[in-house]
């Protein structure tokens, strides 16, 4: 199993002010780069960064290509993942995506993971995109973007969502035929779409190990039996996501980590917004402990006590707001990871930076995790790679996964 960090660049507003202080965003970016640099030294394998627009407090990460480029110059080994790029052409024209991915791949000496997705409703409507067509736009743009990275010259294209005449799109990426392809997969149907398109599934649904096991089994069946690759090489891989705070004791981890997880879920679940005027941190701070875990579901009319919400999207938010299996002592976390390992998850991605967690606590957590949790699983990774080879037996497509 591989390990990575997942960044939204969360920035709650200060409780004593209506807006952020002038250096808050500067500090956030600099601390993030420090964390990524440290994670690289500690042996983390991947960092993925989101692309989100307009989602105040939740994600101040609208230009991940810049942060990842900066990270590439401070790191040696860690893979640099877009998690994800919004592919509808009005967001990011496919030519510009191909150029940026290739350039980042050259700048980083071939360390790019090309994550793709559709974007959320607030973002799509902000760019004037009809949300009912975002999936079709994602597919068209992704399919063509990969060709732009591989064809000399790119033959051109005239489709419903963009048109390009014949041109040679340069530079080409360092990784050939192209960097590994991923798609955001918050729901089960997207995981199976990923399998059929030969893409890695960036699982953002906070799946349990039991759910992960069943989905992974079916994912690999589909890779073997129904794969119609969207690119020239397939990247069969499934990730899971969780909130990480590793401390010497469970009590300390809960004290330092749970509030951040709750705030992550709270911010993720905000539907309507008053742009520039909301103060979600204050709203969150005014909630009781119980409300912090269930507020989102209650807004949907659910009385959540023990039962989890039926809808996958709401369930993910509900789980995001809970302690989960990665906030605790090294022993507690190891126990959880063993279950994911048994389910054959390829990559566990951790939200370390979220809510109002302190930079110092995040750095200490990463260090303890790397020292006391990671080695056991790194030692067994060869067994997992062998299992993957068995799954790929008979698959005729080229594979460029980095697991």
């Amino acid at each position, binding site marked *: 199993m591989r390990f990575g960090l997942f960044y939204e660049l969360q920035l709650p507003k200060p409780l004593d002010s209506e807006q952020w202080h002038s250096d808050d965003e500067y500090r956030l970016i600099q601390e993030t780069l420090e964390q990524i640099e440290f994670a690289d030294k500690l042996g983390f394998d991947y960092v993925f960064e989101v692309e989100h627009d307009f989602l105040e407090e939740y994600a101040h990460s609208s230009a991940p290509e810049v942060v990842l480029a900066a990270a590439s110059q401070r790191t040696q080994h860690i893979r640099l993942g877009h998690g994800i790029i919004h592919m509808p052409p009005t967001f990011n024209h496919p030519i510009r995506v191909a150029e940026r991915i290739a350039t980042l791949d050259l700048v980083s000496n071939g360390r790019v993971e090309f994550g793709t997705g559709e974007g959320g409703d607030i973002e799509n409507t902000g760019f004037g995109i009809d949300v009912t*067509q975002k999936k079709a736009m994602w597919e068209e743009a992704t399919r063509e973007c990969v060709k732009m990275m591989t064809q000399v010259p790119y033959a051109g294209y005239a489709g419903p969502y963009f048109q390009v005449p014949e041109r040679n799109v340069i530079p080409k990426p360092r990784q050939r035929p192209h960097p590994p392809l991923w798609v955001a997969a918050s729901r089960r149907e997207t995981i199976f779409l990923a399998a059929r398109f030969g893409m890695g599934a960036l699982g953002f649904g906070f799946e349990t190990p039991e759910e992960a096991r069943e989905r992974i089994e079916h994912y690999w069946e589909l890779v073997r039996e129904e794969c119609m690759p969207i690119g020239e090489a397939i990247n069969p891989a499934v990730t899971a996501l969780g909130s990480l705070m590793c401390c010497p004791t469970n009590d300390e981890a809960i004290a330092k980590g749970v509030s951040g997880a709750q705030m992550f879920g709270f911010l993720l679940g905000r539907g309507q917004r008053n742009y520039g005027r909301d103060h979600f941190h204050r709203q969150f701070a005014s909630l009781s402990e119980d409300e912090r875990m269930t507020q989102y579901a209650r807004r949907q009319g659910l009385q959540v006590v023990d039962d989890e919400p039926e809808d996958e999207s709401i369930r993910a938010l509900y789980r995001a707001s809970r302690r989960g299996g990665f906030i605790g002592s090294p022993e507690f976390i190891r126990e959880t990871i063993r279950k994911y390992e048994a389910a054959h998850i390829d990559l566990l991605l951790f939200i370390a930076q979220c809510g109002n967690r302190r930079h110092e606590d995040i750095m200490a957590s990463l260090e303890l995790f790397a020292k006391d949790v990671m080695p056991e699983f790194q030692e067994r990774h060869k067994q997992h790679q062998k299992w993957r080879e068995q799954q790929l037996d008979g698959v005729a497509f080229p594979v460029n996964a980095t697991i």
Partner: protein
Amino acid sequence: MVMAKLEQIEDETLRTLLREARSAFLDRQAVTSIQKSVEALLLLMQQQPDLIQLKRTPGVAARVGRVWPNLGVKVEQEQGQPARVVYDRDMYSLSEAITFYEFALESLMAAQR
């Protein structure tokens, strides 16, 4: 949770429709595939009207229960009238076809539970 598989659908008509939907998207016939999945879903909704919610509430990220995929295929239903499908576009993508297929498959399995 048990992973939904085509062979597990007990109703032969629904199973056949979804098998055709699957064959169609594997042949890259997205529109045909979506039509077959939607046909199966309409039959299911006749049997269990509360299983699927047709619309999302504006400004709310998601709702309780299964929400009809917001991909340019609408089901309009007036009281006492049979449901009517409205296709917003002439062309649909493979990814949309696969999404409808998986949504239909999971809904049919949920209806059997």
